[in-house]
């Protein structure tokens, strides 16, 4: 048996993330004792209509979230208990809502920092309704082998170590959340473990007191003894002593009280919990509480350290008198499945990675590009072309190479509004499309007819150079296998109207005294083609391609230079249109050749 929380407890949790965490802990316990999850609903207005996913074993259970307690209990009439995890300023309203619901018999409030007056109103209201209001500041309630409300009991390992998977003979009542686990642990080491452990909360005026629970434990035949962990302040311990001493009780009472240190410390110093404060003339002091408990017949060990042996002695007596029998532990207990991360940390599992990367790593305090920390690159004077070198070609390029790349990017950043990429971006901007979509619309124009010839130009010039082809062989090869030579030819520029960008780039590269076999080949191709037709000149794509192949960039990365450079221009065009608040573009009909059939009569449907 158990008190307050048992196998029939069905729970609604009021609150957000903290409540979800508690539900996870509760699901771990349910899994350990092989029972279905006892949390049936959440009440949290901001998330109403959604579900919270709670891991149970290796699966996930979706628990619905409602706006009000009434909605939750209407859909889940089995709910009889509420756990309150909402903030101190709204806790009373939430607690009252739960208490007023006819389905709910127990409300346990975990919230800390609830005003005293609110706690008193909740406690009074619950007593009037014949219900239990536990808390505030309660760590929860746990009934071994039956039910866990809240995070009391700690991590899964601790649940197992403290033998909470099966009943013992000791009840536990504490004001302190941290010590509740300690006492459960002691009961499981020095005796056969606990029936129910309850945190009543450390506030000055909790909704319930030791006596209400002592009375319940007295009625629970499984509980043979109760351990109370008290502290100075208030009179709950004195009331417990009074109850215990009033008549012969079935249960044994073991109690410790903290706060003796106050006798030798500056007056008025506040310790521990909100309620831990000595009153006038020694009222509520550790000594007066301790004395009252001793007088009532309770076992009161002189120190906290002596508590374990006292529990052990009590257990031995219970064994001797035949009131309890030695427990046989189950041989196999469920193990909580480890998360992949935990299992990997313990070297228990190898996971085949989904993707592989060889260029960057952002797991440290800053990203590393091919192993070099970004900030260090900046501080040592490296620039954007070097980052391109590291990420596109996995190497630290030279100053000279960087300068060439910088010039390429600058020369191809934008070529006016008329080219298809810029035009598409402008069109999208005028249609009200966002920056990234509008720029993407421009970028997808990059292809064989606009900017996208860089890669192919590089590929074929390189092929020719690698195979030591003559220009004639090359042109014959291209004609037979490919078609027009990528990188050659311009729509508006020609020999008579040369492209200054090409001239600029070629003359700069030539001035460097570096070997430029591809560029040289491309220029000799131009001589032949331009002689045939004056606009078959080496264009920007072809020049960029030849130069980039010459400085060693992989052919497949070459279009990237155009995409990167042109993104700068496309962003500019989008911002420009936005700034002007441009109107939607509609094509004028005189710009369209309406070549569709003339208007005619629709024939009857056959």
């Amino acid at each position: 048996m158990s008190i307050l929380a048992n196998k029939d407890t069905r729970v609604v949790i009021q609150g957000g993330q903290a409540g979800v965490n508690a539900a996870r802990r509760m699901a771990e316990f349910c899994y350990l004792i092989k029972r279905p999850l006892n949390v049936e609903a959440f009440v949290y207005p901001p998330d109403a209509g959604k579900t919270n996913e709670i891991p149970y074993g290796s699966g996930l259970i979706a628990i619905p979230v409602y706006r009000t307690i009434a909605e939750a209990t209407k859909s889940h009439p089995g709910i009889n208990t509420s756990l309150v995890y909402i903030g101190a300023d709204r806790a009373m309203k939430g607690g009252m809502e739960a208490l007023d619901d006819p389905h709910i018999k127990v409300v346990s409030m975990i919230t800390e920092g609830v005003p005293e007056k609110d706690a008193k109103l909740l406690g009074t209201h619950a007593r009037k309704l014949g219900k239990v209001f536990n808390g505030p500041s309660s760590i929860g309630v746990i009934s071994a082998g039956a039910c866990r409300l809240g995070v009391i009991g700690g991590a899964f390992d601790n649940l197992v170590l403290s033998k909470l998977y099966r009943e013992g003979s000791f009840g536990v009542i504490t004001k302190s959340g941290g010590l509740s686990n300690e006492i459960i642990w002691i009961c499981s080491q020095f005796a056969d473990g606990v029936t129910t452990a309850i945190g009543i909360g450390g506030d000055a005026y909790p909704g319930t007191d030791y006596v209400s629970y002592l009375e319940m434990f007295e009625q629970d035949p499984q509980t043979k003894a109760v351990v109370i962990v008290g502290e100075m302040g208030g009179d709950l311990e004195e009331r417990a002593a009074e109850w215990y001493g009033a008549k012969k009780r079935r249960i044994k009472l073991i109690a410790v009280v903290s706060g003796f240190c106050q006798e030798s410390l500056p007056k008025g110093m506040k310790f521990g919990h909100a309620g831990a404060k000595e009153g006038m003339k020694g009222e509520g002091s550790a000594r007066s509480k301790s004395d009252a408990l001793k007088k009532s017949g309770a076992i009161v060990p002189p120190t906290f350290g002596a508590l374990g042996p006292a529990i052990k002695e009590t257990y031995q007596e219970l064994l001797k008198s035949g009131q309890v029998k030695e427990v046989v532990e189950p041989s196999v207990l469920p193990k909580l499945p480890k998360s992949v991360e935990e299992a990997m940390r313990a070297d228990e599992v190898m996971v085949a990675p989904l993707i592989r990367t060889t260029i960057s790593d952002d797991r440290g305090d800053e990203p590393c590009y091919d192993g070099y920390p970004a900030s260090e690159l900046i501080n040592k004077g490296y620039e954007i072309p070097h980052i391109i070198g590291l990420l596109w070609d996995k190497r630290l390029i030279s100053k000279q190479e960087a300068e060439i790349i910088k010039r390429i990017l600058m020369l191809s950043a934008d070529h006016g509004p008329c080219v298809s990429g810029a035009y598409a971006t402008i069109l999208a901007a005028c249609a009200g499309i966002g920056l990234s979509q509008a720029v993407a619309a421009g970028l997808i124009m990059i292809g064989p007819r606009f900017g996208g010839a860089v890669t192919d130009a590089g590929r074929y010039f390189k092929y020719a150079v690698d195979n030591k082809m003559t220009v004639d062989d090359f042109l014959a090869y291209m004609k037979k296998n490919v078609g027009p030579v990528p990188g050659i030819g311009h729509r508006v520029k020609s020999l008579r109207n040369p492209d200054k960008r090409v001239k600029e780039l070629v003359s700069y590269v030539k001035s460097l005294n570096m070997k430029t076999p591809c560029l040289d080949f491309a220029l000799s191709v131009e001589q032949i083609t331009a002689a045939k037709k004056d606009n078959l000149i080496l264009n920007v794509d072809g020049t960029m391609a030849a130069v980039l192949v010459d400085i060693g960039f992989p052919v497949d990365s070459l279009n990237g230079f155009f995409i990167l450079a042109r993104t700068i221009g496309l962003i500019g065009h989008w911002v420009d249109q936005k700034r002007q608040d441009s109107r939607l573009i509609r094509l004028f009909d005189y710009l369209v050749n309406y070549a569709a059939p003339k208007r005619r009569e629709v024939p009857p449907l056959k």
Partner: protein
Amino acid sequence: MAKVLEGPGMGLMKKWGIHVPNYVVVTSVDELTKLGQANEWLKKSKLVAKAHEALGSRFKLGLVKVDLDFKAAEAATKEMIGRSVGSITVSQVIVSEMVPHKEEYYCAVKSTREGGEILVANCGGIEVESNWERVKRLCLDVGQTPSPEELEKLAKNAGFTGALAKKMAEFAGKMFGCFDNEDAQYLEVNPVVLRESDGELVALDAVTLLDGDAKFRHPDWNFSFAAEFGRAYSKQELEVMSVDSKIKGSVKFIEIPGGDTAMLPAGGGASVYYSDAVVARGGKLANYAEYSGDPPDWAVEVLTDKVCSLPGIRNIIVGGAIANFTDVKKTFGGIINGFRKAKSEGKLNGVKIWVRRGGPREKEGLDAMRALKDEGFDINVFDRNTPLTDIVDKALQK
């Protein structure tokens, strides 16, 4: 619990219709001089000047002066401001009107488990403590408001008669109104006096303890809370309080001068058992501290820094029960950083560290602590199998 100094305490009482003498709180003589020009009563009345600080026995310390004219009040203010008493320096003086009276009474409202209790006596001042049986009580359930009849009965019970019984009943009713509406935990006026000039009952001082947790519904609480013991908070204590107000979970720190055993325990409950164990072993506590509710590691690091900076310490007790959800590895990470910082600053020489803890990620946390031995720390680490306060016994063994 949050103590409020006399000035703001009287302010709250005034708000709920209780007569209080005129008063001003000043931080300099210049301020008082300026107020004197604007407030006629300061020039016309006899005055009382008191150090406006959370200090016990102000009378004995000469920090209360009575029967002053304005000039003498200025002189008293000048003398008090800047005076050091123990760890605190007087920074404020409250100057109030002296109220000529013959009779002194007592009235208080106190929080109880059921609700509240109104206490009334027809004696006041120091007489009350020696005549405690003359204090009569009216117990009220939470949510209940006392009726005029009940209050009058209480006053009559306490020995008030005729018109005065009615007046006292009214006064007590207003005190309760203030208590209930202001989320007070304790209100005391001693003495309540009968003002000769108009026959009104006046509150001559105010002891006010408010429920700090209720601050969220009192936007007009524009005053700061004072330390509850007889001194102001130290700089270190205030720093930890400011961290505490910013985080999830909590960190707490109070200094106790002259101690040799420093505390760095986890949990509001366990921390007191650790303190008890130190005292029971004949040790001298250097502080009270506590962290709980899975605070961030940096907050625990700040707390550790303060603990390591305590003068004259020989042992540091890093104790704790088996945590429910406080991550031992993470919070210990903060403590370890704090220890390393302290060591690099030349602290912790000859200081022994004792650790006992359990809870989520206890093994990793305890292993990390153990590893500090290799860095030259004198550290002893124990797990859940060592009973809670045994490390105190080991530490204080001669």
